[in-house]
Each structure stands twice: as C-alpha cells, then as structure tokens.
C-alpha cells in the first residue's frame, strides 16, 4: 500500500503476500521493493519478517517456559505455572503414547514444536492489517507477521525434522541397517539374485516414502495457514468496498472465521508435533 498509488484488490492481496526480503538488488544489498525484486534475489536472500517473527516467538516461548521452569517447585503451582505445567504434561503424555523408545530429546523436541508452531499460527488471529500498517507508518514496506504462512519456515522445520529422522535412523540401526530398510522391503525374496533385482524398486519406493515425510509435514502446515491467512485477507477486502452492509457482513465473517481458526491453529500445531514424534519413533524402531 505505497502511498499515492491507488489500492486495488489485486494490489492489496499481493502486498499482503509479499515478504520483507533482504538480499542483493541492482544497487547492492538491501530490501526488495516489490515481489518481483524479491523473486529475483534468488536463494541468497532472507525473509526478514518471517524469520524475525519466528525467532521472536521462539524467544517468547523460551522466556515464558524458562520463567516457569525457574519457579517450578514441588509445592502447589498457581496461575501461569499451572498452565505451563499443563502444556508440559500434555506433551509428555502424547510423547509417551506414541514414542516407545528411550530418548530424552524427543519430549523437548515435541514441546518446542507444539508451542512454537502454535505461537506462529496464533499470529494469524491478529487482524491482517494491524501490525503491517504499523510497520508501514514506520517506513517498512512489507510485513508478513505469520511465519507459518512462509514455506521457508515450515519447510525449514520439516527439513530439520528430516535431519533428525536420518540421524536417529543411522544411530539406532547403523548405516547398513538403515540401507537395508530402504532396499530389502517391501519386496523380499529368498534368492539373492531376485533380491538384487528387487533392490532398485524397493529403494525407489522407500525413498519416495522417506522424502514424502518432511515435505508433507512442512507443506501441510504451510497450506493450512496460507489458506487461512488468504481468507482473512479476502474478508478484509470487504471493508474497502465502502458499503457498510458488506463491511458489517465482513466483520461477522471475520469473527466466525477467527473462532474456527482457533481450532485450526491448535490442531495444526498438534499434528506437526505428533507426526514428528511418530516419524522419530519409526526411526528408532528396529525391524
């Protein structure tokens, strides 16, 4: 919404879907001034808004939970302490239900994912124009405040999870065990020659399954949050129509969608956590 330029629905939507990207422009390092410039920066660029909000929310998580951990005693918990402990217990229960190995890292991973993703999704409930407009007044042209609507963020987490899957698979089963899992099933034969013939087919099938895990994990969260954000933006366009009837209708829709979205953001955070735990559990299982 650069001042002086007439706002159309298309420009409004495009503006809302453009990240504040820092990278190399024609005039040296700097922020991209429009979506096209951001795209031209290629891989060597950073979405400052997504990453910034993401790290900020992660720090909120760390500080909040560190505060609770500091005050944690075996006495009677109160207020905030109760809430934090409830979350911890919930995550602990979920991990114990779906992960049967003995790895002290799984539960903290699950807690981090759940709370962090939940916080990132929660940004979706802030009215779409509120914070971006504040930044615009401050001279920052673009601001996407929901990190989980940026595929970089969701895929970044999913690829980190993928890295953990590979790490634990090799750690638990050994390189040969892991390769065996990739090549000796689902098709198996007693004769070594036939088995050798099956190997490439097995590898192809298993690789697809393996690679599908991080991409489905990241794209599911991204898709859900992107779609939700999109609907909020579309509802927000109704306010610009100038008709108070459409505006009032938009307000009702926004309220309804926001209430429904509370469910979605929690559910998506939960799904991301549970799937991560399940994938890591599979990595720990020896066939």
């Amino acid at each position: 919404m650069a001042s002086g330029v007439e706002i159309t629905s298309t420009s409004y939507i495009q503006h809302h879907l453009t990240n504040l990207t820092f990278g190399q422009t024609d005039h040296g390092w700097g922020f991209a001034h429009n979506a096209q410039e951001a795209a031209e920066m290629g891989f060597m660029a950073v979405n400052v808004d997504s990453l910034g909000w993401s790290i900020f929310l992660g720090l909120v998580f760390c500080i909040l939970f560190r505060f609770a951990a500091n005050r944690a005693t075996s006495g009677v918990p109160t207020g905030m302490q109760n809430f934090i402990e409830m979350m911890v217990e919930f995550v602990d229960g979920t991990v114990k239900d779906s992960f049967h190995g003995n790895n002290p890292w799984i539960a903290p991973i699950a807690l981090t994912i759940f709370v962090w993703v939940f916080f990132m999704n929660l940004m979706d409930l802030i009215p779409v124009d509120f914070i971006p407009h504040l930044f615009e007044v401050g001279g920052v042209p673009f601001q996407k405040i929901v990190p989980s609507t940026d595929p970089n963020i969701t895929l970044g987490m999913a690829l980190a999870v993928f890295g953990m899957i590979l790490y634990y698979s090799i750690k638990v089963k050994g390189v040969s065990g892991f390769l065996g899992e990739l090549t000796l099933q689902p098709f198996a034969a007693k004769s070594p020659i036939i088995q050798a013939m099956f190997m490439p087919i097995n590898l192809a099938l298993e690789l697809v399954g393996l690679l599908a895990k991080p991409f489905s994990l990241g794209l599911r969260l991204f898709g859900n949050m992107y779609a939700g954000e999109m609907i909020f933006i579309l509802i927000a366009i109704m306010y610009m129509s100038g008709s108070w009837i459409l505006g009032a209708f938009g307000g009702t829709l926004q309220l309804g969608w926001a209430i429904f979205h509370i469910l979605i953001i929690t559910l998506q955070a939960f799904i991301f956590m549970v799937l991560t735990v399940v994938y890591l559990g599979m990595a720990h299982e020896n066939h």
Partner: protein
Amino acid sequence: MNINLTLFGQMISFLFFIWFCKKFVWTAIISSMEERQKKIAAGLDAADKASRDLEIAQEKVSAQLKEAKKEATVLIEQANKRAGQIVDEAKEQAKTEADRMKAGAKAEIDMEVNRAKEELRGKVAGLALAGAEKILKANIDEKANSALVDDLAAQL
C-alpha cells in the same frame, strides 16, 4: 513465496530452541512435577495410614470400654452379694441377740415365778397351818406339825 536462506535460518533457530528447551526448561519442569507427584503420593499414603491407625485406636478404645463395663458389672455384682451377706449376717446377729435376750428374760421371769411360787407356798403353808391351828384349836407340837406342813407345801 521464494525459497531462500530463511529455510536455513529457521532450521538453525529450531535446533537452538530445542536445545534450550531440553537444557533449561524440560528437565527442570518435569523433575519438579515428578517430585510433586511423589510428595502427593507420600501424603496420600500418610493419610491412609493415619486413618487406619485411627480405626485401630477406635477398636482398641471400644474393646477397653467393653472390658471396663464387664469389670464394673462383676464389681457391682460382688458388692451386691457382699451387701446381702452383711445384711444376712446382721439379721442373724440380731436374731441371736434377740433370742439371747428373750432367753434371759424368760429365765428371769421363771426365777421370779418360782420365787413367787415359793413365797406363795410358804405363805399358803403358814395360812394352812394357821387355819389348821384354828380348826384344831389346840396347840399342837410345832415340831411334829412342821413335817406335816412341809409335806403339804410340797404338794401345793
């Protein structure tokens, strides 16, 4: 919507937050929660034990009460018996005393009667003698008559 370095930024911060969570959050909260669980379990156990103890104490108390009641009953019975005995003894004593006194009185009465009889007999003999003297109008030898008179008196 472009894939760029943000991906790696997110991965690195993700790993950092996991490390932070494990090191500074999870262990502390879980251990204090487990400690609290143990504390609560111990408290419940203690409460259980206390209520069991109370039950035992109550049983003891009621048993002792029963025992005391039994003893009291026995004591009362004994006391009643003893009281009866004392009363009986007193009655016996009173009866003996009364009998003794009655016997004394009777003996005295008898003695009195006998004495009166003796006196009466003497007097009657004297009277008879006087009578006979008058009848005979003669002075009979007293010595010879006294045997007669004694004989008469004995017959009276």
